[in-house]
C-alpha cells in the first residue's frame, strides 16, 4: 500500500454547510472518498491509500486539477483507493464536492 498526502492552499471555502459526505466504494477500479469540513477555509488536504504503487505523479495532477476547479477550502479529503483510473478519481472527487454543497 502506498500512502500519499497533498496539501493545497485554497482561495475560498467550499460552499454548503454539510459536515461530511462519502461517495464511491472500495472495489476493483473504484474508490471511496470521504470529505469532512475539518480545516481552515484556506486549506484543503487529500490523503490517499492506494494498493497500486508508483502513480504519485498522476495522483498529484488529478488532485491539483480538482482543487483548482472545485476550490474545496476547509475540506479534509481521505481516499481509500481500489485501483481506480484517474478519470474515475476525478469524477468521485467532483461528486463528493457536490454532495458537500447541498
Amino acid at each position, binding site marked *: 500500500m502506498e500512502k500519499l498526502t497533498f496539501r493545497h492552499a485554497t482561495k475560498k471555502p467550499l460552499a454548503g454547510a454539510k459536515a461530511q459526505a462519502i461517495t464511491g466504494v472500495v472495489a476493483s477500479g473504484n474508490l471511496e472518498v470521504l470529505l469532512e469540513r475539518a480545516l481552515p477555509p484556506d486549506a484543503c488536504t487529500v490523503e490517499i491509500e492506494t494498493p497500486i504503487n508508483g502513480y504519485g505523479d498522476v495522483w498529484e*495532477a488529478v488532485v491539483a486539477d480538482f482543487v483548482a476547479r472545485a476550490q474545496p477550502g476547509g475540506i479534509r479529503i481521505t481516499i481509500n483507493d481500489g485501483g481506480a483510473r484517474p*478519470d474515475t478519481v476525478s469524477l468521485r472527487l467532483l461528486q463528493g464536492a457536490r454532495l458537500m454543497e447541498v
Partner: protein
Amino acid sequence: MSGWRRERAARDARIEAGRAHAAGKVVAAASVVDLLEAILRPGDRVCLEGDNQKQADCLARGLSQCDPARVHDLHMVQSGIVLPEHLDIFEQGIAKRLDYSYSGPQGARIARMLYGGQIALGAVHTYLELFARYFIDLTPNVALIAGVSADREGNLYTGPNTEDTPTVVEATAFKNGVVVAQVNEIVDRVPRVDIPGDRIDFVVEADKPFYVEPLFTRDPAAMTETQILMAMMAIKGIYAEYGIRRLNHGIGFGTAAIELLLPTYAERLGLKGKIATHWALNPHPTLIPAIESGWVSQVHCFGSEVGMDRYIRERPDVFFTGADGSLRSNRAFCQTAGLYACDLFIGSTLQIDLSGHSSTVTQSRVAGFGGAPNMGSDPHGRRHPSDTWMKAGREALVTGDPALMRGRKLVVQIVETFGEKLVPTFVEKLDALELARKLKLELAPVMVYADDVTHIVTEEGIANLLLCRDADEREQAIRGVAGYTEVGRGRDRAMVERLRARGIVRRPEDLGIEPLDADRSLLAAKSIKDLVHWSGGLYEPPAKFRNW
C-alpha cells in the same frame, strides 16, 4: 490430357480418393480423418473456415488428427485463428505457412509461436484483403467449411452465420478446388439454399453443432459512467453535428453505450430519424432498444449473434432475411458496405500514438485486424456524396481548388485514456513497432493509420483531427484529450486552450454536457434482462450472460 486441365484432373483425383470414405457426398464424422488424408496433398493451400464467429470445429479436430507423414506443410489461408486446433496443426507439422486476419482468443499463443518460428507468416490481412487474395494469389486448394444443414446433394444452409462461407466457396469451387462442408444435420430439404450443391464436394455430419462465439454481446450491467459520458459526447459532438445516418460500430462498451443512449439521451436531443438510421453491423443485442423505439431503418450484418435469431426473424423490415425467415449475413458484402456506403466508423483500440496511429497489438498479443482497417479507412474510390461526407471534406480541405474537393469518411476512435490495470491508451510509440522489429515484419501491424483518423473521443473530450493544420496541432490535440496519461500530462496547456478556442479540442462543458450527469439511469437497458424485455422475449441470451 490437355496441358490446360492439370488442376482439374488433380481435383478429380482428390475427389475420387475421397469418395472411398463417403456415401455419395455424405461422410460420417468418424471418417473425417480418412477423408482429409485422402483429399489433401502436402503443401496445399487450405481454408479451414474460422470466421469471426462460426467455426468448422469438427473439421479442425479432424485435420489436427491427420498423420503429419501424409499431410504436411499446408499453407493455411483463413480469416480467423480462433480454436486451439488452428495452431495445434502448426506445432504438429501439418501446417507451415499462415495468412490470416484475426486471432482474438489465440492472440497470445500466436505471438509465442511467431517468436518461436513455428509459423511461417505470410501476412496479417484485413478481411476484405484476404478475401481479395483468395481470387488472385491465395486461392485455396481445399476449403473446409461449416453450415447448419445440407441435403444429400450438398445444397447447404449456412444459417444466420453465413459470414465468410460464400466467399471461400466461390474462390475454391470455381478454381478447381475441393470443398468439404461440416453440417449439424443432414436433411431432406434445406430451409434455404445458401450454397448450391454443385459447389460442395463432401458433406460431413458433425458429431456436435459447430461452435459460435457470442462476440458482440456487451452486458449493459458492466457499463460505466465514463463510457456513458463518452457516448454522450460522441452523440452530441459528432453524430448530431455531422448528421450521421449511415454507420458502422466496432465492438466495445463505448459503442454499445451509444446504442443504449439513442432512445433516451439522443431522443431528448431531438435526433430521432436524423442520425443512426442505416447500419453495417452485427446484430448487437444493445441495438434492440433503438430498433424497438423506431430509430433504425435497416441493418446489414457481417455475421449473426448468439441468441438474436428469433428476434431477427420477427424484424424482417430491419434485417436482411431469407425466404425461410432467418438472417442472411455476408462478411464480404457487409465489409464492402461498411467501406463504401457508411459515412462513419467508430471503434476502440488499445494504443494511439502522438500522430493518431493506432494498434491493438501488444508485445505479447497479436490480435490481428479483422475488419477495422477497412471500416476505419477513407475509401478513395468513393464517388457518391452525402452531407456528412462533404462536411468532413470541407473541414479537412486546406489547399487546392474547392471544386475538386472530395468528402471524407469519419473515422472515430472512442477510447478511455487508461485501459485495464491502468495501462495508458496514449503512447509515444506503438508496441506494434517493436513487434515488427522483433519479428522482422516489413509492415508494422497498424490497425488504423493516422491519416484515416478524423476524431478521437475520450472521457476528457473530443479531438477533431480534421481541423488540425499541421503535425504540431495534431499532436497537441491528441495530448489535449489524453487525460492523465504521460502523453496527456505532457501537453502544452496554452496551445491546447488555443485549440479549444478553435473547436479542435472540445470538453464536455463545451458541448453543454455535465460529466456528473453521465449516469446509468440514461441507459435504455441496464441489464441483459432489460434487453430481453425490450425484445418482447424474442432475444434469447446465452447462459453466461444470464442472471435470472
